[in-house]
């Protein structure tokens, strides 16, 4: 069995298209991370201004000044430190970006002239204790991961679409007449598919985390996502979770997505007569739900949100509900993935074993 699994893995990873997809994702991740890092901008009246690495250092220095639990005193200090010193020419101070901390503070506590809007920390965040610090790097990483993981799911489809259907293009009659062709071989294909999905997801997630560590360091993982600069949709998740928790959920959801996609692709690969049909059908099924006019406020989203595309578009799914045990509703992606995988794997094995060579 081990030998058969290794052969199946070799078949998956020796396909040119699969290698292109894998290398493409690695390059895409690197490019996305690097360009995000290079595009960073920060300005502070006392420290100066800069882009890229300098901007990150400025943001970290500012964050260090305020780090800890967000208090009304700190808010007042920020409003004073970041008060506009020049004419805004009619622009709202809320949207004038100076640095990550200023953007986070002004989007919640400023009026359009840059004065305090009168809200206290408890007015904005209720009784939640909001730990603040340098979150910009991790939130950038989270935002990039959404795109990377969508591409990853497509890459997994590319890698797995031929796993059964590729055999129907000629090798099936040799496989299905061999002793283990209808039994262990089909199982080996399923196992190889799962291993491929897990390995690829681990590789890509680890690579993106590594890039984040290199570019932004480790600061801020224990800080709340709720005090994020204004342009991060992550701050709309209505639960006080840390950047570390956000990334853990996001990576968990990447795994549930690729495993769900694996189940769907295995099934389509087994029933399709050629690999292109399997590939196109799996991609269409994966992407189609985003066209549905259902948002997270719709009760149906609790079901639709468990489809694999929403696992990687994590923000909507993470916004549904925090359950009584403290976990987010997104945790239901695990049983959903097991269901997709179980059904897909079971049916594909059966279909392959019963395949008629024509």
């Amino acid at each position: 069995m081990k030998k058969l699994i290794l052969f199946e893995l070799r078949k998956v990873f020796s396909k040119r298209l699969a290698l292109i997809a894998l290398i493409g994702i690695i390059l895409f991740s690197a490019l996305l991370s690097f360009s995000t890092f290079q595009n960073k901008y920060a300005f502070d009246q006392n420290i100066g201004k800069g882009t890229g690495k300098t901007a990150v250092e400025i943001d970290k220095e500012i964050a260090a000044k305020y780090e800890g639990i967000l208090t009304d005193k700190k808010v007042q200090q920020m409003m004073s430190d970041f008060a506009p010193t020049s004419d805004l020419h009619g622009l709202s101070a809320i949207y004038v970006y100076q640095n990550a901390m200023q953007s986070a503070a002004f989007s919640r506590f400023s009026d359009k002239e840059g004065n305090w809007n009168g809200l206290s920390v408890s007015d904005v965040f209720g009784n939640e204790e909001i730990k603040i610090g340098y979150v910009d790097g991790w939130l950038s990483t989270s935002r990039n991961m959404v795109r990377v993981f969508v591409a990853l799911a497509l890459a997994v489809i590319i890698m797995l679409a031929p796993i059964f259907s590729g055999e129907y293009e000629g090798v099936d009659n040799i496989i299905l007449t061999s002793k283990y062709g209808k039994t262990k071989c089909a199982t080996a294909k399923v196992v190889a598919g799962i291993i491929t999905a897990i390995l690829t997801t681990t590789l890509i997630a680890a690579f993106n985390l590594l890039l984040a560590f290199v570019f932004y360091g480790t600061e801020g993982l224990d800080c709340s996502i709720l005090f994020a600069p204004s342009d991060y949709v992550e701050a709309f998740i209505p639960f006080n979770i840390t950047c570390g928790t956000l990334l853990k959920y996001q990576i968990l959801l990447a795994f549930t997505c690729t495993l769900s996609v694996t189940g769907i692709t295995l099934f389509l690969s087994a029933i399709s007569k050629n690999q292109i049909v399997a590939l196109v059908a799996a991609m269409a099924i994966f992407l189609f739900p985003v066209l549905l006019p259902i948002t997270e406020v719709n009760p149906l989203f609790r079901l639709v949100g468990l489809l694999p595309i929403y696992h990687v578009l994590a923000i909507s799914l993470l916004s549904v509900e925090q359950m009584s045990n403290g976990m987010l509703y997104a945790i239901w992606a695990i049983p959903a993935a097991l269901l997709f995988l179980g059904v897909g794997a079971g049916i594909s094995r059966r279909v392959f074993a019963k395949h008629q060579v024509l």
Partner: protein
Amino acid sequence: MELKTIGLTKKFGSKTAVDNLNITLTNGVYGLLGANGAGKTTLMRLLCNIQNPTSGKILLNGKNIVGLGERYRNLLGYLPQHFGYYPDFSAFDFLLYVSALKGLDEKAARKKSKELLEAVDLSRESKHKIKTFSGGMKQRLGIAQAMLNDPHILILDEPTAGLDPKERVRFRNLISAFSKDRIVILSTHIVSDVEFIAEEIIMMKSGQIIHFGNPQEITSEIDGQVWECTVPTAYAEKYAAAYNTSNLRNTSENQTILRIIGDRPPMENAVRVQPTLEDLYLFYFKGGCEE
């Protein structure tokens, strides 16, 4: 060992590819002859259990092969007419993969793969990628994979297609040496291939068996109906078109010897000769492929 079909029928829509076949095969080499579309490949696929019959069943020693599952496939070796391969695998790796599918352990797989690559004259190319192989080399690799598990039932669909004469002789010798106490079924259009090694001939037409017996028995049907006559070469084509001609051979002095199949002597100088399997084949399948 006894492989038996009972009322075996396979239909594709309105076309009956295999029509109520009842045959019993015991140890020996069987040559399956028939024009394209006669049902040979379908019969082989049914015997391999990679196509389900519309009706009827196949029994191995009295047991339905469907129920035997792995136990039946463990006895089986199959070379399909057209088979796929993994272009980036070497010949040796491909055989190791098929060995794993056939349940051979690592050591036995390596030993057997090397032996078979030697037997089909591919040992020097064993590490080459299959995508670099010619059609004949791929065919020889296909023959090797079919024999990896020392099958008791070896089914070869057009095994000599693409092989040059030297390779065909090598193949015939390989099969002859291998066939003891086994059922070997091979289909081919090259009648001489089965004539040399098959103990029994199964001749199929329109999904039915029209002849089943050893070559001498079945050629006896056209005893006295095969003629050789010598004609001027200039008229040879005209005669060949007019009669059921199995062979033309030019001699010196602008003369051609025609081998003609017919009830009556085609001309006065015609000489009655001993029929061959090829004569019989042409007698039945002069029209080429079946619809």
